[in-house]
């Protein structure tokens, strides 16, 4: 899962060998696509979920994304983030973690982030979040081996734990 335009479909095509249209505009995938990938000697199902900015749907693509997430309670979620816009990507990743899903975070568009002079300490991020974090460049396939090898390390994490790792956080007075 991830925002629109972060490279989810490129990911999906690489991992499954399927052909899903990749486009540089939001809302391409409202029909999600399922495919199969080889994983640990087994075929496991992979879904190319429509792009979503959060689990509070504001459009149809997000509605579908949330529905798919809810219908697949026992799956591992690969959160594809745009490394050049990590913060808003983390928002969705945290929401998914809060709901108790095992997550692997892919910091995609690593090349774009480098061009923009943004440096991310992926190992430290991994320690704080307690889930695997892998830098990737989907269009060249960089980081994919590592990503796949780390899928089995994904496990649900308590948000309290992340808060503790991050050094605490003030609770807001108004809850939104």
């Amino acid at each position, binding site marked *: 899962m991830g*925002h629109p335009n972060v490279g989810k479909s490129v990911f999906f095509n690489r991992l499954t060998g399927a052909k899903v249209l990749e486009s540089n505009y939001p809302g391409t995938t409202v029909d999600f696509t399922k495919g199969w990938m080889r994983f640990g000697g087994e075929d496991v199902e992979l879904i190319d979920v429509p792009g*979503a900015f*959060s689990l*509070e749907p504001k459009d149809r693509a997000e509605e579908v994304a949330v529905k798919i997430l809810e219908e697949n309670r026992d799956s591992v979620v690969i959160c594809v983030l745009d490394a050049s816009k990590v*913060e*808003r990507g983390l928002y969705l990743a945290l929401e998914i973690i809060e709901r108790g899903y095992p997550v692997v975070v892919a910091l995609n568009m690593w090349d774009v982030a480098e061009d923009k002079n943004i440096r991310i300490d992926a190992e430290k991020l991994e320690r704080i979040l307690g889930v695997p974090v892998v830098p990737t460049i989907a269009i060249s396939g960089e980081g994919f081996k590592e990503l796949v090898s780390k899928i089995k390390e994904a496990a649900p994490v308590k948000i309290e734990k992340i808060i503790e790792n991050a050094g605490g956080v003030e609770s807001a007075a108004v809850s*939104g």
Partner: protein
Amino acid sequence: MEKKLSEMDFDEEGTVKEIEETLRKQVAGMGIREGKNIRMATKQPIKGPVVVEVDESLTSLGLGVAKKIVVEVG
């Protein structure tokens, strides 16, 4: 001075002060949240949508949506 996002001028910058409750959750994932710096990137004529910049991302909002966001400017 406070004003609605929809009233901001082209290229004006400000800080997001308040977002209407239902909208708030919807735009939070796009990085638009209270306390954030926001810039009016473009305004379309005859009540068209606005495009704002937050954290180097551009987001397009209908004018009616922009009315629900209050910004501190100047």
